[in-house]
C-alpha cells in the first residue's frame, strides 16, 4: 500500500467492521461467548500494533477483539473461535475472552483483570535472553492499574530493564465505575514516571499520533532503555459486556460521549487520508469493500465448520506433542 495512513485505516476498518458483524449476528445465538467490544477504542490497538509490527508479541484482555485483529489480522480463525468451531484458534475452548494466536505473536487474552501484565514480564525476559529483539506489548484497562500486580509489574520491568511496552487503554471506566471513584491520585503517568520507566500519553484518538508515539517508545525500548508506559485515553461505545448501547443507563455523561463520537478514530483517519494524504475516496472504498468481503467470507466459512467433538474436552489440558 503506497499511502502511509491507508494500512492504518484498513486495520481500523477491519476491527470496526468485524465487531459490526458481531453486533449483527450475535442475536442469532450462535456465538455463545460473552463479548466485550472494542468499538470506539480501536485506535489504541491499531496504532500500537502497527508500530510494533509482526515481530512484536502481544498480550491482551477480555476486551480482546481490536488488539487481536490489529496484530494478527487472522479474521477466519477469529470468527471460527467466536462461533466455537473445531478449526477455531483453540477449537472453541477459548472464545472471545481468551483469544490467542501464538503463530502470529498473539500470546493470549484473559478474563481476569490485570492478569496478563506480569506474563508480559516473563515473555519479555525470554526475548532478552534469547536475543530476539522483539518487544512485548501488553494491553490493559484503567481498571487494571488498580490491581497490585500492575504495580509489582512496573517495578519489576523497571528494575530488570525489560523490553516491555505497557499500554493502558483508559476508557475512563471499569464496568460502570469511573476512574475518579477508584484512583487516589491525579495522574497515573506522573506516578509511573517516577519509576525507571519512560511514559507517554495521548488523548487524541488519532491512530497516526498513537502509532508515532509508539514508535518513539519502541526506540527507547530497543535501545535497552527498559520498559515504556503508554497511557492512551479512549472511549467505549457500547456497554461493558455485550453488543448494546447503554447510554440509557446514564452512568456516562452524554456530552462526553458526543465529544468522543466527534473524534471517532475511523472518521478522523478517513478524513485525513482524503484531505491531507491525497488518497482518492474510491481507493478507500475499494479497500473497505475488500475488507468487508474478507470478513463476510470468514463468517460464512466459520459457520460451515462443525463444533468440536465432545472428546476434545480432554485434550489440551497438558501439552501434547503433535
Amino acid at each position, binding site marked *: 500500500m503506497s499511502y502511509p495512513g491507508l494500512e492504518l485505516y484498513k486495520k481500523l476498518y477491519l476491527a470496526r467492521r468485524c465487531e459490526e458483524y458481531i453486533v449483527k449476528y450475535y442475536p442469532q445465538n450462535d*456465538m455463545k461467548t*460473552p463479548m466485550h467490544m472494542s468499538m470506539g477504542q480501536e485506535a489504541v490497538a491499531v496504532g500500537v500494533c502497527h508500530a510494533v509490527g509482526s515481530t512484536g508479541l502481544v498480550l491482551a484482555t477480555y476486551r480482546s477483539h481490536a488488539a487481536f485483529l490489529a496484530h494478527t489480522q487472522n479474521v477466519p480463525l477469529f470468527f471460527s473461535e467466536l462461533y*466455537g468451531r473445531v478449526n477455531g484458534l483453540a477449537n472453541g475452548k477459548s*472464545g472471545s*475472552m*481468551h483469544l490467542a494466536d501464538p503463530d502470529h505473536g498473539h500470546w493470549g487474552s484473559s478474563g481476569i*483483570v490485570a492478569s496478563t501484565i506480569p506474563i508480559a514480564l516473563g515473555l519479555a525476559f525470554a526475548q532478552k535472553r534469547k536475543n530476539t529483539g522483539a518487544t512485548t506489548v501488553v494491553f490493559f484497562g484503567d481498571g487494571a492499574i488498580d490491581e497490585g500486580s500492575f504495580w509489582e509489574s512496573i517495578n519489576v520491568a523497571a528494575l530488570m530493564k525489560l523490553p516491555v511496552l505497557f499500554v493502558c487503554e483508559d476508557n475512563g471506566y471499569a464496568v460502570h465505575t469511573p476512574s475518579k471513584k*477508584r484512583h487516589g491520585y491525579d495522574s497515573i503517568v506522573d506516578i509511573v514516571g517516577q519509576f525507571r520507566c519512560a511514559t507517554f500519553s495521548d488523548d487524541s484518538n488519532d491512530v497516526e499520533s498513537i502509532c508515532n508515539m509508539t514508535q518513539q517508545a519502541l526506540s527507547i525500548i530497543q535501545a535497552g532503555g527498559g520498559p515504556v508506559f503508554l497511557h492512551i485515553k479512549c472511549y467505549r461505545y457500547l456497554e461493558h459486556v455485550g453488543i*448494546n448501547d447503554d447510554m440509557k443507563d446514564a452512568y456516562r455523561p452524554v456530552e462526553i460521549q458526543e465529544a468522543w463520537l466527534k473524534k471517532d478514530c475511523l472518521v478522523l483517519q478517513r478524513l485525513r487520508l482524503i484531505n491531507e494524504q491525497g488518497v482518492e475516496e474510491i481507493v478507500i472504498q475499494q479497500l473497505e469493500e475488500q475488507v468487508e468481503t474478507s470478513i463476510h467470507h470468514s463468517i460464512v466459512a466459520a459457520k460451515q465448520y462443525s463444533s468440536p467433538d465432545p472428546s476434545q*474436552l480432554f485434550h489440551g489440558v497438558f501439552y501434547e506433542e503433535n
Partner: protein
Amino acid sequence: MGFSMRKIDYCQALNEALHQEMAKNPDIFVFGIGVPDHKSVFGSTRGLLETFGPDRCFDTPLCEDSMTGFALGAALGGMRPVHIHIRVDFLLLAMNQIVNMIASYNYSLGGKVKLPIVIRTIIGRGWGQGMHHSKSLQSYFAHIPGLKVVMPTTPRDAKGLLTAALRDNNPVIFIEHRWLYWAENDVPEGEFLIPLGQGNILREGTDLTIVATSWMNVEALRAADLLAKQGVYVEVVDPRTIAPLDEALILRSVEKTGHCLVADNDWVECGFSAEVAARVAEKCFGRLKSPVRRLGFAHTPCPTVRCLEDEFYPNAKRIVAVIHEMLGLPPIDLSGEFSYSHESRFKGPF
C-alpha cells in the same frame, strides 16, 4: 416478624436478607467492585445504596486482595463487613488475606475477638463463561480451619442462611450460583434464620441418597423425577453448609438407603465430594450396598464452546446413568429429556 410466605426468587431473597439485617444492625455494610452500580450485582444489592447511603454500600477500586484485608480490619474495628465478588474466580486474588490472615486471625489473638466477615461470591456458568468465570472452590475454603462455608440452593435457604451468616461472629464464605438466581419458592417475609451447619432433605426417598451442592441439587431433583418414573426413589440431601458439615444428616440418609452418590458443583479431585465420600464410606462401613460414587466437573479447565461445556458439567442424565449403574438397573434412553442450560435467560451479553 411474620412467617407469612410468598414466592420470591433467590436474588430477591438475598436482597431481602441484606435489607432486613442492615436495617437492624448499623455495623453491617456491603462493598465490593460494582456493588452499588445500577446492575447491583445481578440485582442482589438493589436498593441498599438508596436505603443505607454510600457509607454502608460502596464501590471499590479493583483490588481484591487489599479490600479483603480491609474487611478483616473493619471487623477488628467492630464493623460487620459484607464483601461481594461477582465471580468466585476473583477470590483467587484474595487467598492470602482469606487463608493466611482471616482464617487464623482470631486464633492468633487467642480467640478473643468477633470476626464477623461475610464474603459473598457467585459461581458463573454457561454462555462461554469459560475458565475464568466458572470456578466454585468450596473445598478450598472448607479445607481451612477458621472459615465457615455456605452454599444455599433454594431462595428460602438463601435468605435464612445469609441472615445467619450476617449474624455469625466468624468469617463466612457465602457461595451463590448464578443460575439459581431465578429459582423461586416460598420464603418467609419477616426475619428468619437457618442455622449454619444444618443440612436439608430436599426430597425424601428410600432407594439411594444423593448428596448434592448448589446447582447440582437442581440436577439431582430432576434426576429424582426421571427415576421416580421407573419406580426408583432417591433422597436428595443438600448439606447447605459445607463447613461445618451436617454429617449426621447425610449418614442417617445413607444408613436408610444403603447407597450414596455425591454430586458436587466442582471438580472432583480433592474436592468436597471426596470429603463426603470418605466420611460416608468410613462411617457407614459394612452397611453400604454399593460403593459411594462421585460426580463433578470434568477434570479440565472449563471450555467456552457449548458442546464442550455440556460435557464439562454433569447433569441429571448423567446422574441417572450413574444411579442405574449403582443399583444394577439397565440403562434407559433419556435422549428425549431436556437438560438445563438456561439458554434463554443466561445468554449474551450476560
